[in-house]
């Protein structure tokens, strides 16, 4: 049988689609296989109830600007808006980091004058350190410590670029990255509300509290992804981003098959030769690229028998402790959040009133329990885009932390909904009475529905020991795997999680480079 494809991409999440688009753009014959009947993976907008368009899991997402440009995604309908960040205060009121710079300082000043004075210097430093990360994220991480001669010039260039940031800032970057959010924020701010809201970014999707070392890294990683502290809302729902990517990929000539579940990677000797679908169909290709997480790819699709036992052990040890539950609510009207402006409600709303509250939410999860006073990230997409719900109706989308995968019980969906609604009722007392429909996805649901091992959003926790040349596994940071011609392109690879597309783009670059060599 002749091989029709240069590459098969397993999984049409945003990274799989990004890899497909870049490869197709370079003239490769690409086939994307998606298990579900919708593209997007965890960046998907669906209709659980007639007339509603719900961001099932991710409710914000931007992609790196250079990817948006490269793939001309605006032409495929991608429209995004930067949104503010509003820290909700239990009992009413909020700190709105939304509008322009001056207004922002004023808003912070209403809580703490010193914090307002320090804010510009803080954001300037964070932007610089995130800029430093962005340089490191622009290409596959070089193999260390034995650097290939071929990679040495790239590494040297990276080194020079980083030095170009200036010695003082570079030292600050190295100093800040391994810190905890507590240590970082202790150096800058006093206001509980501001500290709580910022600290929350450092633990989003992570099984750590803000007192854990390296949470400052996640804070900066997400900053680098968004090129800002602030997140991005996609017109038409987060899934519109995936749709645009799919259109770009097919526009460049990639083929896309939905409802096509891959059961295994087909090996020929120790090389990947194609895939076998769940229905038994075999498709061959020069290369197989998996956008699934590394554990699912290696232990599920390849199988431990084909791999070195030590590699299997390392794969089993990848930390994937999912801790986010998703709650989607349909409401028969806009709930009244007292003391929050309309502009504030249009952005990302954070309930994390203090750093200690956030740490206590983690404490519960550390021992396998649900956080009764959780950290919530809330989006009200229908304010900016009423068309996502029927006339007069609204949607409210919540990331709840912490709901640890490893402690999950049968009644958690019910309990999570009660905890979330109760927490929201403290902020908007009329909310419980307005609920028309609800959807709760526990970490186990996320695993089943999206194929995320242990429900981990990032395909591997974004902790210091699982980043850079250690992501996904030591010695395999260049998207390659022990199986020749099998590549990884998901966020389980460098530079990692969040909606950025960087892993997918870097994987395509590596594949094209290897092909030339």
């Amino acid at each position, binding site marked *: 049988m002749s091989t029709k494809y240069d590459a098969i991409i397993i999984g049409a999440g945003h990274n799989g689609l990004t890899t497909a688009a870049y490869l197709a753009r370079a003239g490769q014959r690409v086939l994307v296989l998606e298990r579900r009947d919708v593209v997007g993976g965890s960046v998907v907008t669906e209709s659980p109830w007639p007339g509603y368009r719900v961001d099932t899991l991710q409710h914000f997402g931007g992609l790196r600007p250079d990817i948006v440009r490269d793939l001309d995604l605006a032409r495929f309908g991608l429209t995004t808006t930067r949104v503010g960040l509003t820290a909700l205060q239990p009992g009413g009121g909020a700190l709105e980091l939304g509008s322009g710079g001056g207004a922002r300082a004023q808003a912070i000043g209403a809580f703490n004058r010193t914090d307002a004075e320090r804010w510009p210097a803080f954001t300037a430093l964070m932007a610089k350190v995130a800029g430093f990360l962005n340089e490191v994220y622009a290409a596959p991480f070089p193999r260390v410590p034995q650097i290939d001669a071929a990679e040495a010039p790239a590494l040297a260039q990276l080194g020079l670029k980083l030095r170009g940031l200036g*010695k003082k800032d570079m*030292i600050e970057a190295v100093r800040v990255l*391994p810190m905890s959010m507590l240590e970082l924020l202790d150096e800058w701010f006093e206001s509980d509300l501001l500290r709580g809201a910022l600290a929350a970014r450092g633990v989003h999707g992570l099984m750590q509290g803000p007192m*854990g*070392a*390296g949470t400052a890294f996640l804070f900066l990683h997400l900053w680098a992804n968004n090129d800002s502290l602030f997140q991005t809302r996609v017109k038409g729902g987060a899934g519109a981003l995936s749709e645009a990517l799919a259109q770009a990929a097919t526009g460049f000539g990639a083929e896309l098959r939905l409802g096509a579940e891959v059961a295994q990677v087909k090996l020929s000797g120790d090389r990947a030769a194609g895939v076998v679908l769940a229905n038994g169909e075999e498709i061959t290709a020069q290369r197989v690229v998996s956008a699934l997480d590394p554990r699912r790819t290696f232990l599920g699709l390849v199988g431990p028998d084909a791999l070195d036992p030590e590699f299997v052990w390392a794969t089993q040890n990848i*930390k994937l402790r999912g801790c986010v539950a998703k709650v989607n609510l349909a409401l028969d009207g806009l709930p009244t959040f007292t003391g929050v402006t309309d502009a504030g409600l249009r952005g990302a709303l954070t309930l994390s009133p203090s750093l200690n509250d956030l740490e206590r939410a983690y404490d519960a999860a550390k021992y396998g329990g649900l956080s009764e006073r959780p950290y919530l990230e809330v989006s009200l997409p229908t304010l900016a885009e009423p068309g996502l719900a029927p006339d007069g109706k609204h949607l409210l989308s919540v990331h709840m932390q912490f709901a640890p995968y490893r402690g999950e019980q049968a009644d958690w969906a019910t309990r999570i909904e009660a905890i979330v609604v109760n927490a929201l009722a403290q902020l908007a007392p009329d909310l419980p009475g307005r609920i028309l429909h609800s959807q709760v996805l526990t970490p186990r649901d996320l695993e089943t529905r999206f194929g995320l091992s242990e429900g981990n959003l990032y395909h591997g926790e974004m*902790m210091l020991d699982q980043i850079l040349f*250690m992501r996904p596994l*030591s010695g395999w940071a260049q998207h390659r795997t022990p199986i020749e011609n099998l590549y990884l392109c998901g966020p389980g690879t460098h530079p990692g999680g969040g909606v950025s597309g960087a892993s997918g783009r870097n994987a395509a670059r590596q594949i094209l480079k290897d092909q030339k060599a």
Partner: protein
Amino acid sequence: MANNYDAIVIGGGHNGLIHAAYLARAGKKVVVLERRHLVGGAAVTEEIVPGFKFTEFSYVVSLLRPEIIRDLELPKHGLTILPLPSTFTPMDNGDYLAAWDDHDKTRREIWRHSPKDADAYDAYSRAMARMAMAVKPILSMIPPDPTSLSPKDLFGLLKLGGHAGSLSEKDFHNLAKLMTMSAADLLEEWFELDPLKGTKSASGIIGTFLGPRSPGTAYVLLHHYMGEIDGAFRAWGFAKGGTGGISNSIASSARALGVEVRLNASVAHVIVKGGRAVGVALENGDELYAKTISSSLDPKRTFLKLIEPRHLPDDFLTAIKRYRTRGSSGKVNLALSELPDFTALPGVGPLHRGAISISPSIEYIERAYDAAKYGDLPARPYIDSILPSMIDPDMAPPGQHVMSCFVQYAPYHLNGGWDDAKREAFGDSVVDTLAQYAPNLKRAIIGRQVLVPPDIERITGLTEGNIFAGELALHQLFFLRPAPGYTDYRTPIRGFWQCGSGTHPGGGIMGANGRLAALEVLKG
């Protein structure tokens, strides 16, 4: 003039003394100024209850660099280190887990609880030993600044790079992981047995304000794993006469090399003239002058108490102010009429010659941390005890004993502040916890000394009672310790040096700081 020296060393702790001894060995005229009536700093032995000698603060030794023992001929000056042969962990189910000084015996003991862990123990021990060997060279060099372009740093980087390059790819990666992960994650990769993981994870939190689930604690575990007594790798020991015995032997060696040690000589401030440190003024008004002045006090005390701020650049002052020194541990020293009798292993046995660790699981220690991180005292603390009188009978009257209990967590910033009642409540929680495993303990207590972080600060001068003179957090290690750009023991003031545990490579009775700093001072 009598008060003129080549070098003044502030603080007669082990690092100050070692620093002074190395300078004197190079022919310098050196004086060590110690505030208290005895040398040793946090490594002192004092007779607090008549007849009972307490190793008041620091109580075991493993990191003391063998080159220092050789160079300063410490055995000749009375240093005798006796091995601590075992670790005994009583379990909540009435059983116990022990580690003996015989690898096979330990494996057999683990096998009794978990055959799987007994298998993993071999591979784990080998992997950790390899990692410790890989990190060790960093302890003997000034860490290069990776952001610098100076020839010195580039050379250092090359040396380190060459060293890293000599590691296999696998070891290099394992090392990078170990530097960044939590002790709990590391141990859970290998083991399933709770008391084994608990006891091993405890080395990752000693002296830190972190729980075993906090990233960065695997490095602290390795830091303690690197211990070597006189070149024998990976062993803990107890010095004859307590840790004060170590200090006394170093002081004796220093004096033999010509160092003058002045006790009860508290330094009020450093005299700076024209951007250069020229001397020190004592609390009693005396002034001493020297070409170089070295402080072995912690960085906060050194720069915020002894130096007027106008002599220091703003950036540097900021860095020192934000240098973190949260104290997290306390000490309970007991005078006993008889040995504690453990229900898990009754009678007097080898367990009494080793460490007794109250660390039944990672969760136990983590919960103790949970209380402390919000400023509360844990109901059941982590305790590491030894019975010095079992190793060195001179520590207590015949038939009687001293018990040294290192306790975590005791937060310096306790909610509502510390007072005598809280100190005693802390002491009670330690005794109660131990008595759950050794019920005769309470009636055996003749006297006790409870030391909480403010006590440690008051007596030893360590800011916030932090036993490492600054937390061993990733952002305070290597070229960032104590402040970026000042890891080479120099300070912004010419002629003024640092040589204490707040500098690279950190705390513990290691002495590397004092020695490396002396070698730098001698370079000029």
